[in-house]
């Protein structure tokens, strides 16, 4: 099962970076705006099977008929007709380094991001040279039968496996934004881990950088077969610049009996982006699903990774961290649905709001009747750093079974003046002292991140505290 060289243009027909393999096809049909024709054209250009075209159209009709959510953040700024729904590499490449906002360039410098990577993150081309590492990992995975492909390629090469799971955890009509994604999705990752296989190193979209991991409407599908384990890492701590104002991804995960999946996301979109993402995992008997979800960027994020505990003794964990600076609203949290006996879950949320930023924890714990001995603990802490910042907590609980242990606790606090005084009396300036306190506050989550992310995360917080970044 030789995997194609991702540098070859034919390998990434759905990607935006290298354009389309059939250069004769006119690309100008993709104007701004959305219609059934756009949806069909996307499917046609990807040469998809009929069932996918039909599904896209069905999802499009659902998107059209459903109103925008009136809860959560303010979505009135989104003009769905002012968005490109399919963008090719040649379109993207016209962006220039000079157009990248100052605050983002400054952050790259302060974080010490290498030149090539900077340009990649800023969406102005360039190639992050991770090929050597990537190939080694790939060869190793291949031997074990692990599939790790772009989603478009996954559909082409594994049509049956793909069709069996696609849109099953998050149906096309789940919500308006998931419907939009189903209609126009492009890119993302397709992962299958065979029974009993443990993928040792985290699979990072970072390594698939030359394909299509940072698409606007990416679609990721992960299937961990019985007794297997995998850790997937998406995004990066450094800011990612895009001119597209809407990012609406869908991530579906199937965790089969006894399997274990951890999905780590660090989102740091530029502050013009509406980030509206649906993420859900179905966890079966004795499995473990963990979401580690960090939200630093975007104008507005609405994202509530969820876990459906469908088999006995399944366990779910959600670690959520959010940082909202000036003008940002992070409406994040998580959902756990207990639908089997002896299932357990833990949600830990840490949010920080600064300047005029607003963080909201929004979560749901639901226990169906008959799910005996279900246990869930939700712990939310919020830190408000400025007088104009705001923090909300909306923890929903629906408990329809008696024999359960369900608890929720939350606190909201500011940086204590005694804490600051103590640190400053030891010679730190106020920004350093605040940063240290904030780093301590998020430590329980940062320590769960892969090392390079943890290091960058701490430095980012420090930059935020100095007011060096926006």
């Amino acid at each position: 099962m030789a995997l194609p060289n991702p540098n070859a243009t034919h390998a990434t027909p759905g990607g935006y970076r290298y354009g389309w393999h059939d250069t004769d096809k006119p690309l100008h049909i993709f104007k701004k705006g959305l219609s059934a024709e756009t949806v069909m054209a996307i499917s046609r250009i990807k040469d998809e099977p009929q069932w996918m075209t039909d599904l896209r159209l069905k999802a499009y009709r659902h998107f059209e008929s459903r109103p925008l959510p009136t809860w959560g953040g303010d979505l009135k700024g989104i003009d769905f007709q002012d968005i490109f729904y399919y963008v090719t590499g040649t379109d993207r490449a016209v962006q220039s380094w000079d157009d990248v906002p100052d605050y983002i360039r400054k952050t790259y410098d302060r974080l010490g991001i290498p030149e090539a990577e900077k340009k990649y993150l800023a969406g102005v081309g360039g190639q992050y040279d991770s090929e050597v590492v990537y190939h080694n990992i790939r060869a190793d995975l291949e031997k074990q039968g692990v599939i790790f492909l772009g989603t478009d390629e996954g559909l082409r090469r594994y049509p049956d496996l793909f069709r069996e799971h696609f849109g099953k955890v998050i149906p096309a009509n789940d919500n308006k934004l998931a419907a939009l994604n189903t209609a126009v999705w492009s890119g993302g990752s397709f992962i299958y881990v065979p029974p009993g296989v443990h993928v040792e190193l985290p699979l990072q979209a970072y390594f698939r950088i030359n394909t299509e991991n940072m698409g606007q409407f990416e679609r990721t599908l992960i299937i961990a077969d019985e007794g297997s384990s995998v850790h997937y890492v998406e995004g990066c701590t450094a800011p990612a610049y895009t001119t597209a104002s809407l990012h609406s991804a869908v991530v579906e995960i199937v965790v089969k009996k006894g399997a274990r999946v951890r999905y780590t996301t660090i989102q740091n979109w530029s502050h013009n982006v509406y980030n509206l993402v649906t993420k859900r995992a179905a966890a079966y008997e004795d499995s473990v699903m963990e979401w580690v979800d960090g939200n630093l960027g975007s104008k507005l994020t609405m994202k509530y990774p969820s876990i459906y505990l469908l088999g006995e003794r399944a366990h779910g964990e959600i670690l959520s961290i959010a940082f909202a600076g000036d003008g940002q609203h992070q409406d994040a949290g998580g959902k756990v649905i207990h639908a089997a006996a002896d299932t357990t879950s833990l949600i830990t949320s840490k949010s920080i709001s600064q300047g005029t930023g607003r963080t909201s924890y929004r979560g749901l714990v639901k226990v169906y009747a008959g799910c005996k001995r279900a246990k869930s603990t939700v712990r939310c802490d919020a830190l408000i750093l400025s007088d104009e910042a705001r923090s909300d907590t909306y923890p929903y609980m629906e408990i329809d079974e008696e024999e359960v242990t369900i608890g929720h606790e939350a606190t909201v606090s500011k940086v204590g003046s005694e804490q600051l005084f103590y640190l400053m009396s030891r010679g730190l300036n106020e920004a350093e002292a605040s940063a240290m306190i904030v780093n301590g506050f998020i430590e329980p989550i940062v320590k769960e991140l892969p090392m390079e992310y943890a290091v960058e995360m701490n430095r980012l917080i420090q930059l935020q505290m100095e007011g060096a970044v926006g």
Partner: protein
Amino acid sequence: MAVALSTVLEDAGTGRLSERRSEPAWLRALRAEWARRAETDAWPTGSEEEWRRTKLDGLPRDGALLNDPPATEYVIDPAWAARGVIFGSLGDAVRDHPDLVRAHLGQSRTAAPQAHFWARSLATWTAGTFLYVPVGVVIDEALTARTQLPAGEWSHFPHSLVVLERDASATLLEEFSSPDGGATWYGGTTDLRLGEGARLRYASLQRLGDAAWQIGAQRAEVGKDAVLTLLDAEIGSAVTKMGLEVRMSGGGGTSRLLGILAAGGAQRIDINSTQDLLASHTTSDLLYLAALYDEAHASFYGLTRVRPEAKATSSYQECRNLLLSPLAGAEPIPVLEIETNDILRCGHGATAGAIDPVQRFYAMSRGLPADEAERMIVRGFFERVVAQIDSEPIRARVLAALAARIGSEESDDSGEVAA
């Protein structure tokens, strides 16, 4: 799909109602004004966050308005009247102290979720309590207002108004009950107004019959340095929807909101609370305890809002649910909206679960039968609220009402609490 308020008004006719009750022109105008508001403040559609968990489809709307409700029994030492304290029915107060009532009645508005029912009550009330305590008067006994409502089908929207002037202090229990089986709509509302430095302990004990619907609202305005302790005990009714709103509008004010819910059968209890911290150095704590038997279901949607201008505030919300049957259910949703970083303390906690088997085992290993052990544990569960009721007569009434639901213990007739 608003219930035709016009039907109620036509039937009662705010004008004719006033006429029949020989009310002054200002009150007639006030009723008409609130009737207009009841029409503009829409009936809930069911998609509002606060109304998603209680649908009004089954509300018994056909009962005629109780024009002549049974008299409430008001208990107070007559000596207080000499010191300017007024305690009795709102109707009597309108007749005897029109200027005072006029200055306070219908002056408060509620948050949107309750607005319609608040307005309806102010337009069509035919009963309710009026308590006025003048500046500096400290009443050191518990006042009680008990109403036994009739059987049958009716609707009733009493309004109670409590005004405590500067540095005044009072303790008041309002208890109302009705026989089982009457498909009634009880829409009582309460307006508590605490002046600077006032101290009010207010308890409302609901013991409606098993077919009654209660759509109620209680609202309090807590002035500078004032202290409010509010106990909301919901024992009866088929469906209860209670909107509680505490506005901490004076600097340094304190409020403690306590709730006791004991529900069985197919009872539905849905509480919305709002703790609105509008001024600096205010404190507001809430503790709701629910014991749910059979197929009873309790929802709690509580909001703590700290406004940008309210500095150095403390607040807490706690909601605990004891599930005593496999078919009981709970939805505790404690919400925080914090718009300033200058807070001393802010948090919330919520739990739901069955009796800890270790506790049960412990009690039974001491020789208690299973049902007695459960009763004792439930009684202990409520103790955190009961212990905060510092008026002995009120505590005895609450415990008596609780005993009817959770089963009595032999010590009941002594009026003592099982410690």
